[in-house]
């Protein structure tokens, strides 16, 4: 998975430059909403439940102001990513307790022949752990800038 391939999953309607939520549950729902609005999700409440279960398994807040809520669900028929930024940061009980500003929501169908889901997840983790990229992503003003930053990664 290259940064350019990853960037091809990002869409204007699936980028939220200024998240309004201030709690963990609310921000997960806010990130999911563009997919619901675009009818890309069969059942919003089922997906929310599954994402919540994933957080039970372990917080997807990976530290350094980044969280990557994700799950496989029968409710979608292809992989979808929503990226979002919070200017003030949101408590997400991540591993270092820091407020989260950079979010990637990833949904994937259980049966996924292209096998892209885990590589995408891995790539996002890798980029988000690069201090310089992460700091720039958090400050991005729009999707184009966000994508340009991602493409600076390997």
């Amino acid at each position, binding site marked *: 998975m290259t940064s350019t391939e990853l960037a091809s999953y990002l869409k204007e309607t699936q980028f939220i430059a200024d998240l309004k939520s201030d709690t963990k549950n609310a921000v997960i729902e806010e990130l999911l909403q563009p997919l619901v609005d675009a009818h890309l999700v069969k059942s919003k409440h*089922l997906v929310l*439940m599954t994402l919540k279960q994933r957080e039970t398994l372990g917080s997807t807040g990976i530290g350094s102001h980044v969280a990557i809520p994700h799950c496989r669900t*029968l409710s979608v028929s292809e992989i979808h990513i929503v990226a979002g930024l919070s200017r003030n940061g949101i408590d997400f009980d991540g591993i270092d307790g820091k407020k989260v500003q950079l979010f990637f929501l990833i949904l994937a169908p259980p049966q996924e022949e292209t096998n892209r889901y885990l590589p995408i997840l891995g790539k996002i983790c890798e980029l988000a752990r690069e201090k310089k990229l992460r700091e720039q992503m958090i400050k991005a003003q729009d999707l184009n800038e966000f994508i340009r930053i991602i493409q600076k990664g390997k």
Partner: protein
Amino acid sequence: MGRNQVELLVLYHDIQSMLLDAKQEEDCMGFTMEGEEKLKEAMQEVERKIETRYLRTFERLKTRYSHPIVPVQDGTCLGCFSRLPTSYNERGRNEQEVFTCENCGRLLYWVA
């Protein structure tokens, strides 16, 4: 009741997928998985709500397929790609009754 049962089967399935991915997410990506026991308990809670006949079907299918429940899209079972009868499609889509594919036997979830 139908809708509820289909959704429980979907949730049950999706939690199982999650547990299968957990190891790779932990080993290769550094996610922490301190809640595995808690999630298994949550899964058992879902399991208890599923009617025995559906659960039996699910478990029996699991010995044959990695995904005992599959999506239906455009009237087609995405497990075996056979077309489903029109009557199934209407009831499955609108009432979310629990159906199995006549061809492959998998449980069905209408997504479109």
